[in-house]
């Protein structure tokens, strides 16, 4: 599991944010934070071309201040599901919902009662606690994910202008995300050696 990079990035971003706060003349937005119709938000992934064994945030569609972030999986075999938390700045960004209609877990026509997609974004401010999984590896089977495919799509909008390097625009995975794989139906375990990759938002 490789989450160190994201943590380092958060630390750097925090330093930048402190610097920005200390130097207000350096920017921080000019529209008062309303995320109005004139704002255009853009998500830039840390890893736009994820390799094998990667769960990465990639850009989805966007309209004005609204933008989508795809949670993608690349090169993971025997996937049953994943549990993770997405961190964001709730002052700068507003979480608007989760879309699982195009989820890779639906491949093969797995019925809805053998799928679970759950999110909570209120229990812990700044965290979206997410689970996406097939239920019952025997009945539902697992998924061999080759090329990059969407696990979920998260809908956000920018609440204020966000400059490049603004910590308020960071999106990442919190500690201890887990992706479960089942080698055979009765030997399921948390997959190791994964890379979890986030990104950043700018809004102008």
């Amino acid at each position, binding site marked *: 599991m490789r989450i160190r990079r994201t943590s380092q990035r958060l630390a750097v971003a925090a330093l930048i944010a402190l610097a920005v706060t200390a130097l207000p003349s350096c920017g921080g937005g000019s529209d008062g934070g309303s995320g109005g119709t004139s704002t255009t938000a853009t998500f830039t992934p840390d890893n736009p071309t994820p390799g094998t064994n990667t769960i990465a945030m990639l850009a989805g569609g966007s309209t004005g201040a609204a933008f989508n972030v795809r949670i993608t999986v690349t090169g993971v075999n025997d996937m*049953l599901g994943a549990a993770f938390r997405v961190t964001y700045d709730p002052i700068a960004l507003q979480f608007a919902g989760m879309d699982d209609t195009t989820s890779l877990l639906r491949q093969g026509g797995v019925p809805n*009662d053998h799928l679970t997609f*759950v999110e909570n974004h209120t*229990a812990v401010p700044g965290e979206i*606690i997410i689970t996406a999984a*097939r*239920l019952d590896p*025997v009945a539902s089977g697992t998924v061999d994910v080759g090329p990059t495919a969407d696990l979920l799509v998260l809908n956000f909008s920018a609440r204020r202008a966000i400059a490049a390097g603004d910590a308020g625009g960071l999106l990442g995975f919190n500690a201890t995300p*887990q992706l479960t794989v089942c080698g055979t139906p*009765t030997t399921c375990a948390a997959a190791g050696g994964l890379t979890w990759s986030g990104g950043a938002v700018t809004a102008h």
Partner: protein
Amino acid sequence: MNRIRLAAVCAVALASVGTSYAATFYVATTGTDNANCGSSSAPCRHIQFAIDKAQNDGDIVRVKNGTYAECFIVPTPGSGLAQVTVESDAFATGAPLGSAILDGAGVCDLASGAAGPVVVVVDRSVVRGFKIQHGGDSGVWGFGAVAITNNTITGNSTTTYAGGIFAYTGAYISAADTKLAINDNTISSNTSVGSGGGLYVFAPGVGLPSSVEIRNNTLTNNVAGPDPGDGAFGAFGGAMTIFTDSLTTLDTASVVITNNTIDGNAAHKSVDGYPAYGGGIFVATGIYLGYGTETVEVGDFGADNDNAIRNNTTEGYGGGVSVNLQPGIGADHTIKVVNNFFSNNSGERGGGGVHGFFLTGDPDNGGTGTLEITDNTVTGNHASGLPGSGVLGGGGIFAEMYSRRTPLPQVSFEIERNKIQSNDSKSIGGGVSLFAYSDDDPEQNGVALPSAAKIDFRNNLVAQNSAVNPGTGGARGGGVWAAGRAFGDQAVATIDLDFLTVASNHTDSGAGGIELEAYPELDDPGNTMGFVEIELTNSIITGNELIGTGGPITPGGTVSVDVRYNDAFDNEGADWEANLGVTPGTNGNISVDPGLDAQFTPQLCSATIDAGDPAAPFDDEPQPNGGRVNMGELGGTANATRTLPDSNGDDIVDGVDILKLAVAFGSSTGGPRYDPAVDFDGDGNNDGSDLSYLASMYARSCP
């Protein structure tokens, strides 16, 4: 074949019509009593005249609106009939009731010089749909399996007992599977010098079973007493007095009292000062012989079975209800007070809401007795007697048990699952007073036998009650006062306090939560000391004034105090009085914020969850229950707070828990993927119900 059968059916039907034909006789204030009266167009003038015309069981006397100044009996004595109905025409037609008035004024009221009831109804006859008033010796007497229904019975009186209705079963029961029914009446403003201001039922089983149903009545502002007689008892039952009895071991008597409103009635002490019992309801079994099976139920489970008992007063015991259980020889007697609402009742000497009295008094008594006070809401009741006056208080409930050489398990006194809140006492036991008394040689003849008095007080909420004497102080035991007294070494008096939530109670002195007292005594020859046992387990005692749990009791000798698996926290002065010898951190006792909500229910992360006695049965708690009972009033019950469904122990319910379930999903006990850690409902399956519960708790965490 079919034609033959059809003919036979027709013959039976015709025969039935011929034998069950019921005549209807009409009465109106404009009618005339003569040989031809009784039809709707030519009604009789007097009800008794029409009753006398009845020829067959099932005949009906229908009475038009108007005031009838007569007092009558149905059926006519000597007629050989058992079942004649007297009903108002308004009842029969569904019109508003109250204008067909049976009025004893000047006929059978006290001033008439021939005081008697307005109506006497016998055997299986029926009186319904009337306003019945001004009886001089009750409004109605009923003998047998009669039905007295849909009447307003008001303004009647008696110089003896039973102001509104007197009803008796016994030898007047003439057929099996019948019952005396007093249903859907309003019984108000009746008075009796003796007991039973509104209603007095004596229901002995003599041969045929005696069965009584009292349902859907409203009893208000009835008054019993004061009796001026020399040495007279105080009155029993301001609204209602129920006595059962049984002549032999084969006889049965049962009374069911459900869905009544008992409001604003009063029972007075006698002029000589003997206390009254039951401002609202008084119940007693086995008063005379009690050899058989007797059961009285005041309330029952279900929304339509509870009684509302409020604003009643007594100059004695049991402002709302006083129940008196005295099992006879070889008998089985049971009284249940279940699922009622007691509010703002007052008892001068004790038991503002409920008074339970249990006496096993015969040394040769082989009978069993069960007294249950369960699932009631007891709120805002008052015990007004002052300290030092010999009263035993109990603003909400006063329970007293006297065992005289009767061992367990012949006797059982259980007070369970009640909500006892905001009651007050000026003496002891703001919420509850419990007193167990046991004597191994009550006859003082040197023949001692095992004797046990035990009160089980379990799964009750006792909150916001007060033992406060505004005058001179001295009240104690804001939530619970409990005491045992035992004479002789074969006598044990036990108070079992288990799974309680005792919170935010107030007191003048002593313990604001639970005040304990023990009185071991020498038996009469002065040789051996009785045993007093106090058990306090699995309880939450928090936020009480002064001391949480205390009292003048020191464990040792023949006094045992077993205090285990309790959470005592944030009581004003101390959680435990020093003489109890309780040390938090030992014997499962803790002192941690129990995390109660406004209803005194432990929250999800309460330290009292899964902290009760590990040996206590936990199966009734809903899954996930952690495999161990909770402390407090809901511990061990189906309403217990569930354990956080945190399958991996990271103190949060999140996707990791769901993934565990996802892996195991669809499996059952014994299967290779089955995971008991995510079988939250414990049904042996990892399935949707587990997922549903996980989802409902998703993202919940405990710090």
